């Protein structure tokens, strides 16, 4: 018998439908139905100027907007041949790592609530708000930032930011053991999550599964280490891995990743304190800012010789490997923009880690995948 879990179901965390074929309580087959949140971001991007696409990137994944801005900016800069100043690169790392903490805290809150633990949900959301407060202090927004620009970032940090950031990092460092006590110390949690949703490294690679799910199977692939971008080659951190490949292992990997993010952020904040400088490249081509310039009472299209090129960038997004391919055909809009969403691939492999378990196991397993429908449907 086929049943629908979704589009409105507490398990889905977003708008999608998991069709499940069951025999009693056993899962025989699954068929995820996506597309409820499809907004055609790739199509709309073809009709916008390069800097205007950034607005869409925040909406791509609504819990990791900065990561997607970063991804797009890296490939757009390569396609246009623009280089950002060093301070901007560190600022982008600051954004991405805080975003990783914010995203993982959101995941933690939602995941443990799926298991029926209510209080960790409140603690997770409380601490995520501290990160959002930091974002608000320098971008003015809590979720849709529009902060990065082709050639750098929009503005520098406000005075007193680094003290505030260090306070938040200290606070978070002291909270991680408490999270572990709430979950790993709980017999209910361990009996519910151990040996559940197992997906071994071999199958992960074959089915394109990346991110914490892949690393929980013992594979040490992290694009920040393997293919460093921005300032990651100048920062010290370890790649979080676990061996068991089950739901508990994914929990352990994400917790360790947050600790490593705190470690990276301490270095970044120190660096930013000692290296003032410009945050936007000098001598940016004028058409980047204003393709249509008002002159007199009428608008004129500024005819420029745009460079041609393609840009391919990949980052380690909180959910896994995200990839962008921007084709610049010499026009004022990108000719084609293609995004690879990590959750898209992770859900496409759902048959591999759901079949054989029970219906009641679906919420914890899908919770451990960390689904963000915004970036799957785009």
């Amino acid at each position, binding site marked *: 018998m086929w049943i629908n879990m979704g589009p409105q179901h507490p398990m889905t965390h977003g708008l999608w439908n998991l069709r499940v074929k069951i025999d009693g309580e056993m899962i025989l087959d699954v068929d995820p139905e996506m*597309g409820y949140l499809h907004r055609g971001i790739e199509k709309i991007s073809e009709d916008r100027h390069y800097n205007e696409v950034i607005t869409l990137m925040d909406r791509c994944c609504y819990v990791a907007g900065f990561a997607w801005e970063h991804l797009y900016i890296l490939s757009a800069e390569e396609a246009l041949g623009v280089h950002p100043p060093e301070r901007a690169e560190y600022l982008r790392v600051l954004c991405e790592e805080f975003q990783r903490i914010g995203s993982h805290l959101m995941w933690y809150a939602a995941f443990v609530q799926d298991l029926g633990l209510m209080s960790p949900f409140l603690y997770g959301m409380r601490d995520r708000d501290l990160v959002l407060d930091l974002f608000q202090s320098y971008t003015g927004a809590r979720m849709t930032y529009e902060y990065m620009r082709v050639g750098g970032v929009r503005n520098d940090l406000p005075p007193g930011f680094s003290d505030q950031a260090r306070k938040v990092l200290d606070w978070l460092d002291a909270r991680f053991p408490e999270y572990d006590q709430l979950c790993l110390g709980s017999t209910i949690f361990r009996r519910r999550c151990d040996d559940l949703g197992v997906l071994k490294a071999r199958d992960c690679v074959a*089915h*394109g599964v990346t991110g914490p799910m892949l690393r929980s199977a013992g594979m040490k692939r992290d694009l920040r280490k393997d293919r460093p971008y921005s300032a990651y080659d100048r920062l010290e951190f370890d790649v979080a891995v676990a061996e068991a490949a089950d739901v508990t292992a994914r929990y352990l990997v994400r917790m360790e990743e947050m600790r490593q993010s705190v470690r990276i952020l301490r270095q970044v904040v120190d660096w930013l304190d000692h290296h003032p400088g410009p945050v936007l490249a000098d001598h940016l081509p004028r058409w980047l800012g204003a393709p249509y310039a008002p002159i007199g009472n009428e608008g004129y299209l500024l005819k420029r010789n745009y460079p041609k090129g393609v840009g391919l960038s990949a980052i380690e997004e909180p959910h896994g490997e995200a990839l962008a391919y921007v084709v610049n055909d010499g026009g004022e809009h990108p000719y084609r923009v293609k995004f690879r969403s990590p959750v898209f691939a992770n859900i496409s492999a759902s048959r591999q880690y759901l079949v054989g378990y029970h219906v009641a196991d679906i919420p914890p397993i899908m919770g451990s995948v960390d689904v963000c429908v915004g970036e799957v449907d785009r």
Partner: protein
Amino acid sequence: MEPNDIARQLAPKLGAGLVAVEPLPGTAGRIRFRPEAALELFRAVRDELNFGHLSTVGAIDWVDHREVFYVVWSDDAKQYLFLSTDVPADKPHVESASSIWPSANWHEREAWEMVGVTFDHHPDLRHLLMPDGYAFHPLLRSFKLHEPEELEVKTRRV
């Protein structure tokens, strides 16, 4: 891995199926191949060059033809490799990569519904993001978001 090494390794196996191996910034190179040689190339790239992870599949509508591209990653070389092939616009089709990399399944479904490229021998080629029975391929250039208004382009007199 350099484009020349890749060409040297693949050329004897693929012959005329291999069009060119060009450098592409940020990757090990860009392999251009003929659609008829797709399966052979995929197998060689996975088994001989060790690119075990297929990152994504996409397609571009160049109006006079369409381009299908594949991005693959090697855990040994820690590099991406870009594969691309040109298919005719009147009957765009290429062999599915899902028998080589199972992860191609959904990426190809998306490329088919968005750009209208058919993937032969795909296990499950149906709509993914669009509703069933949707009659258009939205990422084609002929699918207009809006009709562009006539914009009078004036040059500024100095």
